[in-house]
Each structure stands twice: as C-alpha cells, then as structure tokens.
C-alpha cells in the first residue's frame, strides 16, 4: 500500500468530503491560497474558492462564534487553528455555546463543527505553541475529542468527524504530522470510541495518548529484550473513551500505566485510572501508575523542553517500576 503523511491523510478525507458536500467550509489564518501553515488545505482553494476556504483575520473568538452560528443554520464549518493554543481565546464560544446548543435546544439544533489544530511539545515552539488541552474539552459534555496517532487512523477519524453532528475537537500532534504510514486511497471511516491495540503483550498495559504512543512503542522494544511484553493501547478518541478495551487488556495483564504529555491533575490518566479502579479493581495486581509531562508551562530551550515531556527512558523505567510492584 502507498504511504502518506498524517496531514496528507486528513487532507484526503477533507477533499473527498468537500467534493461531496457543498455545505462544508474551512476558516483559519492562511488556509486559503497558502494552503495552511501545516498544509492542511493545500490545493483546495483552487477547487472551491474563497467562500469555502475563507482566510480569517486574527480573531479566534469571532470566527469560532461565527462558525457555531453557521453550524446551527445548515453548514458544516471547520475551524483550522494551526496551533490549538489559539483556541483558548474562543473558550467561551465553545464551552458556553457550541457544546450546549444541542442540549439547550432539546435536540432541535445540530452543531456539526470541527475544531482542528496542532498540539504538543516539540521543536522549541515554547509555551504559546505547545499546548494540548484535551483534558479541558473531555471534561465538558457536548464535545467529541479525537487524538489520532497514525495516518491511517487520522484519515478514518477525520472522515467520521466530517459527518458528525457534534462539535469535534480534532488534535494532531505536531511531532507526527509528517510521519508516513500506509493509507488506502479509497474512503473509509473509523468510528469514535474504539481504541486501537498498537502492540499486543501480556505483562503490562500502557495506555498512551498522541505522540506518547510512538515513544511507548520504542520503549517496548527495549523492554521486550528484557522479557517484558507490553500491550499498548491508543484510545484514538478521548470522548467517547473506549474504557472496555482498557479493561479487557488489564484483565489480561493485571498492570496499567497511562502515558500522557499533558498535565497530571484532573487529566485523562486520572480518568482512566479511576474507571479501571471502579470497574476492574479485581484484575489489578499493582497500583495504577501515571507518567505525565511536568506541571509547568512549556519552556523554549531544547534542554529545558526535553525535561518537561516524558521520554523513552522514562517510559522504560516506569514500566520496570510497575512490573516490580
């Protein structure tokens, strides 16, 4: 099968949907003729013009609120934030409005709104271009939260987002945007709420999110040399969260570590740990463990930046500690 990057994969899904559905439009800064800072819309402006590829002033609250109104009235907007840190200027429009409109209208209005952007630490982007923020959105009823980690998943999950009637937060980690993977040329969808087993194993379960999936798989190679076979679960969507796949794995391994570069308090690891303790306590042979990024803003200097995000060595040590517990 041919191999394409994660960004090319989401662009294929977008292009196919835009060809079929003329209510889809994209807004963002530089998503028009320029094709997006991360090539998210390359080539689409030439096909669909400025009405459907609308460059925006730096006005995040404005165009997010505008797109919420558009989603309520018959179109399917996509907000391309470039860096998802910029979404914070629009939090009121999202949490108080987009997430609540379907409920407050008792299901008579829909909110088919996609909010996409790059997340994650890396490349010395510093603290205003390195956030992930998915725990914030997972906490709010009304949002779907998607964090793809392979080109194949990205295409199928984005295709699902493009036909969803719910607001979808689609978060692409910047360190894997240009990783290549096998992707079919035909269209397909991957349902929300189905985790992927990224590596099978029987000694320990690791749930990893975003770029941590790749680092965990690297750690698994080293652990396997020592005879530790880790099962790696990529949840793919954090809301809905496929806790059943995690429980099934823990039933087999008896041990659980969650690896996530976002902050630990009230994070996705806390949620997964709580649900496993509630529903799978008898399967646990050791306390559930978490490995998170440091509880600090993201610094610029490479030596400082590397110190705030979990690395392969730390994942190896965390698994070894868990196995010894």
């Amino acid at each position, binding site marked *: 099968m041919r191999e394409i990057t994660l960004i090319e994969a989401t662009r294929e899904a977008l292009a196919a949907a835009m060809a079929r559905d003329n209510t889809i439009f994209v807004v963002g800064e530089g998503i028009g003729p320029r094709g997006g800072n991360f090539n998210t819309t390359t080539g689409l402006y030439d096909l669909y013009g400025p009405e459907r590829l609308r460059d925006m002033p730096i006005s995040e609250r404005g165009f997010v609120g*505008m797109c919420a109104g*558009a*989603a309520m009235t018959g179109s399917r907007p996509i907000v391309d934030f470039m860096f998802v840190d910029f979404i914070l200027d629009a939090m009121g429009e999202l949490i108080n409005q987009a997430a609540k409109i379907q409920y407050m209208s008792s299901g008579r209005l829909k909110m088919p709104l996609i909010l996409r952007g790059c997340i994650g630490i890396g490349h010395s982007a510093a603290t205003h271009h390195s956030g992930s923020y998915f725990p914030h959105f997972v906490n709010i009823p009304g949002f779907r939260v998607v964090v793809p980690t392979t080109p194949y998943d990205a295409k199928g999950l984005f295709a699902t987002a493009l036909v969803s009637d719910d607001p979808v937060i689609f978060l692409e980690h910047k360190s894997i945007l240009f990783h290549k993977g096998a992707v079919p040329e035909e269209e397909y969808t991957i349902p929300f709420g189905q985790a992927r087993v990224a590596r099978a194993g029987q000694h320990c379960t690791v749930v990893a999110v975003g770029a941590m999936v790749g680092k965990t798989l690297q750690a698994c190679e080293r652990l396997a040399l020592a005879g530790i076979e880790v099962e790696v679960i990529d949840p793919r969507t954090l809301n809905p969260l496929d*806790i059943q796949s995690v429980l099934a794995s823990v039933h087999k391994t008896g041990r659980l570590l969650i690896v996530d570069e976002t902050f630990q308090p009230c994070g996705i690891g806390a949620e997964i740990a709580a649900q496993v303790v509630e529903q799978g306590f008898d399967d646990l042979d050791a306390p559930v463990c978490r490995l998170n990024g440091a509880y600090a803003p993201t610094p610029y200097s490479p030596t400082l930046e590397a110190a705030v995000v979990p690395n392969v060595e730390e994942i190896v040590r965390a698994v070894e500690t868990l196995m010894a517990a």
Partner: protein
Amino acid sequence: MSVQPTTDPAPGQIDRSAALEFYRVMLTIRRTEEQLARSHQQGLIHGACHTYVGQEAIAAGVCAHLRPDDAVFSTHRGHGHALAKGVPPRELIAELFGRATGCSRGRGGSMHLFAPEIGMMGTSGIVGPCILQATGAGYSFQLLKTDRVGVAFFGDGAVNNGAFHEGLNLASICRLPVLFVCENNQYATEIAFAYAAGNPQVGMRGSAYGMPGVTLDGNDVVAVYQAAGEAVARARAGGGPTLLECRTYRTRAHAEGMRDVGYRTQEEVDRWKAQDPIARCRTYLLQKQAVAVEALEQIEADVQTTVTEAERFARNSPWPEATTACQHVYSEPAQPASH
C-alpha cells in the same frame, strides 16, 4: 427556497394592517411580561426573569420584516424577540415555569429560548455571542445561496465586548446578510452606558467596520420598521450588514425581584415612561392611520385573552420527566450520562 416578493411600503407609508400588527405584537409582549412579573411574585418562575417592558417597538419593528426561515439570535433580555418572531405566549410562559411544554422544553428558562422551527435560534445568558452566531447564520445563508438574513439583538452592554468588534468586522469583510440591532437602553445591568463607552454613539461605530450605521428612536415603531426594512432589503440583495442603534429604555428593574435603586432616578424613569412605545403607537394609529378606537380595543381584549389563557396553559402543563435530563447532550440518541 422560495423568494417572497417584498410588500414593504415606501418610507413614510405604512400599510394600515401592518401598523395594526405592530400594535398587536407590542401589546402581546407587554401583557405577557406583566403576567410574568406577577407570576414571578407568586413564585411560579424558578430563576431569573428579565423583562422587555419599554423596548417593545424594536422587536416588533424589526421582526415584521422577517420570515420564519430568517434566523434571530438574542440576548438575556429576549422574551420580546421570541414573541415577535412567533413563539406563542403560552410556550414562553411555560418555559419560565419550567414545564415540558415550554419553548425549550424546560431546559432554558428566561435566558435560553429556542424555537428553531420558526427561526428563533436561541437567546443567551452570556452577553455577546448572539452577535457572532447571527454572523455565522449570515455565512450559512450566503454559502447556501439563499436570501435569508441573520439578526442579532443585543443591548448597549454588548458593544464594549470583543464579540461586537470581531463579529461586525467579520460580517463586513465577508459582506454577510446580517442585521446588528443594538437596543441601547442606557444601562448594562446598572452600569450607565454614558460612563462605560468611550464613544457612546453606537450608530457611528458602523463606519469603523465599513458598514452603514444608523441611530434612531427605538421607542418609535415606525422609525424602527422603516430602518430595519432598508437594512433587511439590503442584506437580502447581497448588500451586506447594517448596524442599527435603537435608543430605548427598560422601565422595569434589570431582573424581576431586583432592587432598582442607586443607579438611576425616578425622574429619569418617568421621563422615559412618557415616551412609552405602545402609547405612541396607539396615538399614531388613531391620528395618522385613522384607526377606529374600537379596533384597538378589540386587539387589547384579544391579547389579554391570549395571555390569560397562556398563563393557565403554562400552570397546568406537565413538568419534564427527570429521566430526560441527560438527553440531547450529543446528536445521537441514547448517549450514556457520562462516558
């Protein structure tokens, strides 16, 4: 998408039946609000109740130009907009009573009124978002190649908010079919607009965003109707957005049951009460439209009957089932209460 021929009269010439309809709509708002104020005192309204008393000419004059497929987005003081857009008084009262028959099925109360089937796309407890959402409706209507319009109603409290700046700018650069209707009632809760605004001439701000801006007497329904008519026609024809500043006054407290002292004088309230938009409309109908007083009395009796029956309907309506409290969080049915 059917395009209806315009029936709007030329400026200065208001069709008599249209003028009588202003009176009926304004009076329906007033009588419904007075009923809600009484119901609030009786404890039948469980949360806030922000009345529209004194501002009725604006909702009536603007909504007279709107079709059910035009989209209205409004603010916390939105009862009048919902009624003028066509929400029956009984569904409004039932909503404030928290009943299943309310326009939001009991999910919203005074500040969250939804009737999307007739283009009432929601009121909001947050000041400002309606401006952006109406802009978005305009985006949809332009993209879908229709002649529908989006309308935002908001108070003077919204125009010092970033949503106003960003929404008007976006509507202007995209030339969207949107009306921005500022109901300048002089106070944001109890903060005087004259204090809160570096430039208190809201209509003048239109030029800052490259769109027509008009300031008018918001207690004169004919003036509102004519200005809104021009703006709606321009929007439908692809001429882009308009900002209307309607100067008006809320004669009751910010919310029912709130103390209404310390920020304005009784003399000021009385001065504005003498400019009551409904009394002025009545005088206009009698003097300029030569309407017989009996015709107005008939409307007054009909409205009172409607409101009385609406209150009874609301009071006798069922409560929403508690088992439905987590429905419609997501579009798909049968979502669990938590993931």
